[in-house]
């Protein structure tokens, strides 16, 4: 077996040093009834070529986003990632290392995390960011829990514009800990209804912008109302590229900002692994979940970086930790940081502008299709449209023509009375001809 370096004579020599008669003698503590006599019922080992063929066959049965017109967003976005990003994250020293427990021989990972934290703080407009969580949805759930700890209150108000999967992840984590989640009705402009749901028990208000329907909202008034009631404002963003064009959560008064960072540096990969961004006000620092990287000096006074404030964490605090998270999204965070470094301020701003422009072109093209109504009043790169037919059926019909038309709301939020609503997204990868092909196919499909 190509990954196992020990030879039969190595094994014999090692057993001799141990003083054991056989390998079986090393498994003597396993109850006899539980010892398997031979291999389990699975295929035997295979060479690289055979495995590559088998995996290639599976991959060939999927339709990659890049194979044609493609308009899915709703929490995961197709962007172009520069070739150098993937090259760098595959360097052995990044790929095959672990959590930097020994900082003297992990400065590469630690310095990159310090850069990541600084970039995330800048993007969100908040003073402190952590070293990543699993993804945007778990970061959102952690934010709710942090707000409950910080305010000692036990209710979270979730805007109806919050991605339904995020709302479900929040409910799952919160309700077991006795924190109630009040999920407001789904609506394209749901943020308008948030303020009146805030009361004296409210630990936090969770608002997404751009929201799941694509609507962009200035949440400053919600921040004021939340703060007046002693609650915190959590601002969620699923499309991190939007930070390049829109006011940051911090500028609008957010106490905590969480985001899905996949758009920067990371491929779609069917939903994971992604990277959760988490930033907050300074006063909340010691309540932050997950790893934090901090600056310090070595014995000779040279600057270096270490994991810090670990008294918040499970390996020190155990049941009193701020979260159980251990392994997070290190390599995805590195990809984010490298891509962000390549973009820089100028690149990110331009990329965001291109995304917005392509979405405006898409809006124009779809608005001209008979029977289609554009619902989203203000958007970044995705929007909701109402079709004269169930959206899922239209998506399936267009998929047969090679066009992936977007995400039907019914897939996210069953029973929401929005079966005719389709979420569409355009990015810099969306060509003008893709938009034209989509509008033409949609016109044809709706005419039938």
């Amino acid at each position, binding site marked *: 077996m190509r990954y196992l370096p020990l030879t039969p004579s190595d094994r014999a020599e090692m057993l001799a040093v141990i003083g054991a008669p056989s390998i079986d003698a090393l498994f003597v503590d396993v109850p006899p009834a539980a010892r398997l006599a031979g291999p389990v019922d699975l295929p035997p080992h295979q060479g690289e070529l055979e495995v590559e063929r088998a995996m290639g066959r599976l991959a060939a049965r999927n339709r990659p986003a890049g194979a044609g017109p493609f308009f899915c967003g709703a929490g995961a976005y197709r962007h172009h990632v520069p070739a150098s990003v993937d090259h760098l994250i595959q360097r052995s020293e990044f790929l095959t290392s672990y959590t930097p427990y020994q900082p*003297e021989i992990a400065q590469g990972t630690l310095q990159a995390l310090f850069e990541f934290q600084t970039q995330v703080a800048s*993007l969100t407009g908040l003073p402190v960011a952590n070293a990543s969580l699993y993804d945007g949805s778990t970061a959102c759930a952690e934010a709710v829990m942090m707000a409950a700890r910080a305010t000692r209150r036990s209710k979270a108000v979730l805007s109806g514009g919050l991605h339904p999967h995020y709302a479900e992840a929040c409910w799952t984590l919160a309700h077991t800990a006795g924190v109630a989640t009040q999920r407001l009705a789904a609506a394209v402009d749901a943020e308008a209804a948030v303020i009146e749901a805030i009361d004296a028990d409210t630990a936090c208000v969770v608002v997404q912008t751009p929201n799941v329907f694509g609507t962009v909202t200035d949440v400053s008034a919600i921040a004021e109302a939340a703060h007046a009631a002693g609650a915190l404002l959590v601002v969620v963003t699923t499309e991190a590229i939007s930070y390049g064009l829109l006011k940051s959560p911090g500028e609008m008064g957010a106490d905590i900002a969480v985001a899905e960072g996949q758009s920067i540096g990371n491929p779609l990969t069917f939903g994971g692994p992604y990277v959760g961004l988490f930033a907050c006000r300074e006063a909340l620092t010691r309540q932050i979940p997950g790893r934090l990287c901090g*600056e310090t000096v070595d014995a000779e006074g040279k600057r270096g970086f270490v994991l810090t404030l670990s008294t918040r964490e499970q390996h020190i605090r155990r049941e009193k930790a701020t979260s159980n998270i251990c392994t997070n999204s290190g390599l995805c965070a590195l990809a984010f940081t490298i891509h962000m470094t390549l973009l820089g301020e100028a690149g990110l701003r331009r990329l965001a502008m291109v995304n917005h422009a392509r979405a405006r072109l898409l809006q124009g093209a779809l608005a001209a299709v008979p029977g289609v109504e554009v619902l989203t009043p203000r958007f970044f790169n995705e929007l909701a449209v109402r079709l004269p037919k169930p959206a899922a059926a239209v998506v399936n019909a267009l998929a047969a023509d090679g066009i992936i038309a977007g995400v039907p709301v019914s897939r996210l939020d069953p029973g929401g009375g929005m079966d005719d609503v389709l979420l569409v997204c355009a990015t810099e990868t969306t060509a003008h001809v893709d938009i034209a092909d989509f509008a033409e196919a949609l016109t044809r499909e709706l005419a039938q």
Partner: protein
Amino acid sequence: MTVLAAGRPTRPEIEIPNQAAPEGRGHGLAQDEPLIFELDGWDKTGVDLPEAELDASDLGDLVRTSMIGLPGLSEPETLRHYVRLSQKNHAIDLAMYPLGSCTMKHNPRLNEKMARLPGFADIHPLQPQSTVQGALALMDELAHWLKTLTGMPAVALSPKAGAHGELCGLLAIRAALEARGDARRTVLAPVSAHGTNPATAAMAGYQVVEIAQTDDGRVDIADLASKLGPNVAAVMVTNPNTCGLFERDVMEISRLTHAAGAFFYCDGANFNAIVGRVRPGDLGVDAMHINLHKTFSTPHGGGGPGAGPVVLSAALAPFAPAPWVVSEEEGWRLIERNEGEAAQAFGRLCAFHGQMGMYVRALTYMMSHGSDGLRQVAEDAVLAANYVKARLSGALTAAFPDGPCMHEALFDDTWLEDTGISTLDVAKALIDEGFHPMTMYFPLVVHGAMLIEPTETEPKSEIDRFCDAVLRLAAAAKAGDVARFKGAPFTAPLRRLDETAAARKPRLKWTA
């Protein structure tokens, strides 16, 4: 004086005095590297993008007017910056990385190549299911391998890391108990447990009660029995445990647990030691997470991403969270909402379908090894750890000297008594020997613990090189060479870092 064939001397003819370090940044191949914020990149970019066709006037004052504060670098500068940083990391590809409990094994590059096939990397979690049949088939196949290897009937794939898997298992247990109208408030876990166990139990709404450990490093059955009762929801046990030992009485643990109406959660962090040789399902386990980044070698990536699928017993399976895949006549179907066949699901753990990129890598690894190779993995991992234990026991003090260990060898710091040298000092001195240190001060039940996990992918020569280095250090410690330890590391990119100062006055980002 030796002279090369070309006539050039290989040694200088004069005595060269020691030179002071040169002025500039770095020396030889070791480059000092500033932060990106210090590289004058405020107006640079490393990407070429088209002009936007339209402006953002439609967004009015929603548009940001302030600077974000992000530096950019051209592509060559970016490459250099991150390559220089990379060279300050230890890695498995460089030398043995015997970090106990973390299973730092070789990461096959075939796994990386497969995960990057456009059919896996460039598919959206919400595109029509008819266009991702290969992805769903892969998830189903991975589930089949995990279920077969563990002897368990069901698996929830979506947890994103081991700790997330623990949460998944405990929430399934909680839901199962609630479904039978039997709310219970307590989870029992040994003192030697990973910190994630009590942290997860607390997140799942449980009080944690510790189970004592016997002198031979196992769960104290009498103590467990005395603490089991109608209020105990689950017993969480790591097996093989964090002392690197198999819980000999695991059948009794599961019998007592079930007799008390509780569920048996197994922390599968150490599954690498038994894969292909023991099925947790045969031990009475109700739920166990599997760290794909440990046992199935998806890379650790400097701290993730991992993946933590949870295998479940028949009693817990109905409460597993969506999504999962079912195979039907027309093809594979993703159950992604908690209705119909998933009506009892406890909720949702994350936005989409878990760590697909890790599923591809793990299945590639499993298919490469096959049932025979995976069994060999466990055997070689256990053999390597016992070999380390045998070679080092004369100089170090094994925490549990009697009987074999499983995949990791645990030592305490008795051998350092009266030397003035601590476990931390030994770890730092190992850096100067070219190795990543072992896990130190864990598990908490062993004083000054040193937990060494060589894994099955180390050649004997590398294990010997490591053992020789530890033995050299042991001899130096006993000879009173304290400076070699207290000052270590001397040869790493940085000397010992002041972690206390970092925590006292946290600087968590760059500021101008």
